[in-house]
C-alpha cells in the first residue's frame, strides 16, 4: 500500500470510522468550504483610514499622501532625496507611463533583481485592522519588487483600504476566479529579533516601507 493510503487508513481506523465509503463526510466538507463562514472579528473603529495609518506607522511604515497619479514621481523623488537614497528604481508596469525623468529619477519597468535598491509597486488592497498591504502576484505584479530592494515604495488607493483580512479575501473572491500563485501580506519593513530579542529592521527584505496614499 502507498504511504498515502496507509496514513489515511490509520487516521480513519484510529477514529473508529470505516475505511471506505465516506461520501457524507465529503459532502459536509464541500458544504463547509462553499459557505466558508467568517469567525468572530475584533472591533475596529469606523474610520478605517485612520486605523490603517495608525497601525502602519506603528509597524515602522512611513506614509505620504498624493493627490493624483501624476504626482507620484515628485513624491518618490522627495522621499529618496530626504533620506539620501539613490535616484534609481524599478517599478511595476502600471507606473511605466509616469514622467520619472522630469524628477531626476531613473526608473526601469521590470522585476527587481538582487542589486536593485528601490522597488516601486502598487498593492491589491490594504488592511486597516493591522496596517497591512495585501499583494497578489502576477505577470504585472512581480513579488520580487517588494522583497529584494532595501527600500519598498507602495502606492495604495484610499478606496482599497478594507477593514480586516476577511474583507481582503472577499475582494479577491469577487474580483478573481482563483488565488494567484502568491498572496503576500506585508506589515512594515522586514525585521528580526533573533539576537538577544532585540528588534532590528531590515533582515533579508526591505529596511524601509514607504506608502503613497492616493485619494
Amino acid at each position, binding site marked *: 500500500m*502507498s*504511504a*498515502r493510503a*496507509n*496514513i489515511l487508513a*490509520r*487516521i*480513519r481506523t*484510529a*477514529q*473508529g470510522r470505516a475505511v471506505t465509503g*465516506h461520501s457524507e*463526510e*465529503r459532502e459536509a*466538507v464541500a458544504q*463547509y*468550504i462553499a459557505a*466558508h463562514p*467568517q*469567525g*468572530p*472579528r*475584533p*472591533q475596529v473603529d469606523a474610520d478605517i483610514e485612520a486605523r490603517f495609518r495608525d*497601525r502602519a506607522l506603528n*509597524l515602522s511604515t512611513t506614509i505620504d499622501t498624493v493627490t493624483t497619479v501624476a504626482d507620484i514621481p515628485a513624491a518618490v523623488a522627495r522621499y529618496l532625496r530626504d533620506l539620501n537614497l539613490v535616484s534609481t528604481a524599478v517599478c511595476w508596469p502600471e507606473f511605466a507611463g509616469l514622467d520619472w525623468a522630469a524628477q531626476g529619477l531613473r526608473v526601469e519597468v521590470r*522585476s527587481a533583481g*538582487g542589486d536593485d535598491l528601490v522597488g516601486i509597486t502598487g498593492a491589491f488592497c490594504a488592511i486597516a485592522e*493591522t496596517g497591512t498591504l495585501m499583494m497578489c502576484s*502576477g*505577470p504585472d505584479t*512581480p*513579488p*520580487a519588487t517588494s*522583497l529584494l530592494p532595501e527600500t519598498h515604495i507602495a502606492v495604495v488607493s484610499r478606496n482599497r483600504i478594507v477593514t480586516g*483580512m*476577511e474583507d481582503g*479575501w472577499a475582494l479577491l473572491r469577487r474580483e478573481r476566479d*482563483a*488565488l*494567484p*500563485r*502568491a498572496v*503576500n*501580506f*506585508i*506589515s*512594515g519593513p*522586514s525585521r*528580526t*529579533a*533573533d*539576537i*538577544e*530579542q532585540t528588534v*532590528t529592521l*531590515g*533582515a*533579508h*527584505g526591505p529596511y524601509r516601507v514607504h506608502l503613497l496614499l492616493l485619494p
Partner: protein
Amino acid sequence: MQITSMHFKARAGAKLADVRLQGALKKLQGNFVKGRADRVAELDNFQDIRDAAAAIRDRALANLDVWLDTFERNATARGTVVHWAETHDDVNRIVKEIAAQHGVRKVIKSKSMVTEECALNDALIGAGLEVIETDLGEYILQLAKEPPSHIVAPVVHKTREEVSDLFAEKHNAPRLTDIPALCREAREKLRPHFLSADMGVSGANFIIAETGSTLIVTNEGNGRMVTTLPRVHVAITGIEKVVPTLEDVTTLLRLLPRHGTGQSITNYISVTTGPRRAGDLDGPEHFHVILVDAGRTKLIGGDLQEMLRCIRCGACMNHCPVYQSVGGHAYGWVYPGPMGAILTPTYIGLENAPDLPNASTLCGQCSVACPVKIPLPDLLRKLRERQFEQGLKPWHEVAALRAWGWLAQHPSVYGLMTRIKVRALKAMANREGMIRSLPFGGGWTDRRDFPAPAGKTFREMYKAKNKN
C-alpha cells in the same frame, strides 16, 4: 536531530547552573510573555476568537483524512505535486529524489521544525548537496553546529557576544558587536545564496484545504525568498496542519503572532499556491508539498488528540516555569516545554523520554496561555498514567510510593516513623535551623538550604495542645 531526551535530569541540572543561559531566558519572559498579554488585550473578543480557533482545529482533526484529501485535490489542480511521508526517513528520501530529479546542487531553507525532526540537513549534505539555513537564528545555529532551543526563537540561548565571536571566526571577518551590524553581515552573506540556490525548502504554518495553498509566517522575509526565488520549491509539513478555509486561517492568524512573538501580525504572511503561472516573472517552476505523519497518527483518535490542535506558537514554553529555568536544550529533542513534553514521548516513545511527562509542576500556566486551548497539564497527567501502566516508572520511585502507601494505611507505624524522622532532621540542623545537605535529597539542597522541622510532629503538637 539527535535525541537526548533520556538525559533530561542531568542536563536540566547543568542548565540551572549556567548563569549566562539564565540571563538569556529572563529576556524571553519579559518580551514574549508581556508581548502576548499586551497584544491579546487589543482584542475586545479574545476569548471568542480563542474558542473559534480551537473549534477550527478540532473540525480539521475530526475528519482529518477528508480535509487532507481535499487539500491534495486542490493543490494538484494548481500544479503542486503532493507527497506523503510515513516516517522521517521517507521525508529525507523524497527530498533527495526531488533534488536529483531537478539537478539541484544548492538548497536554501527557511525555518522548519519538521525538517529538524527529520535531520534533513544532514541527509542532504550526505547526498552531496549544499544546504544553507536562512532564518537568522537558524543560520547562527548552523554555523555553531547546535540544535534550536526554542521553536520560535531558536537561538534564544545565545548572547550577542557569542554571535560576534562566531561570525568573526566563520566569516573570517572583523568582529562586529552591534546587533544591527551583525544582522547586516548575515544579510550580505546570505543574499548571494538566495539568488543562486536551485531549491527552496520551507515548512508550512498551515495548509489550506479550500485552495490547496501553503502558508508561512515570517518576519525576516527569508520565507518569501525561499518560496519565490529558487526554481524548485518543497514545503514540508505535518498532516495535522490542515485548515479548511481562508476565513478559518484568518482567525488563527489573529492568534499565532500574538502568542508567538507578541506581535499583532508578523511582517510577512505568504500564501503560495502551486508553481509560477503563465507570464509570471518569478516563482518556482516546480512546487512540491510533503505531508508528514512520523508519529502524528499515534495521537489521532486517542485521549491525546487535542495535542494536534497545536499551532506551534511557543506560548506554552514561554509561560512554563520549568522551561524558563532549564531552557530548551535540556528537553533533548526538537520540541521543548510543555508541548514538547507531550509530543516527544509520543513521537519517539515514552521509554526514550521518561522524564519529560514529569518535567512539569502542573501549574497550568501553559493551558491558560495556549491559543487553541490545549489542556496540556491534563495530557501530561495522562502520559504519567500511561508510564505507570506500562511499567516505565523507575523501580525506586515505584517502591518508595508503595512504601508510602503502606505507611499511610497504618497510622500507628506512620506516627512512629514521622516522630523518628522529625527528630533526626532537627538534629541535623545548624544554628540557624537550616539543613545544608540532605542525604538522598541532594536535588533539594544543592542550591538552597532546607529548613529543619521543629522536632515534633503535627500530631504530637495537636495532642499536647488539646491536653492544656
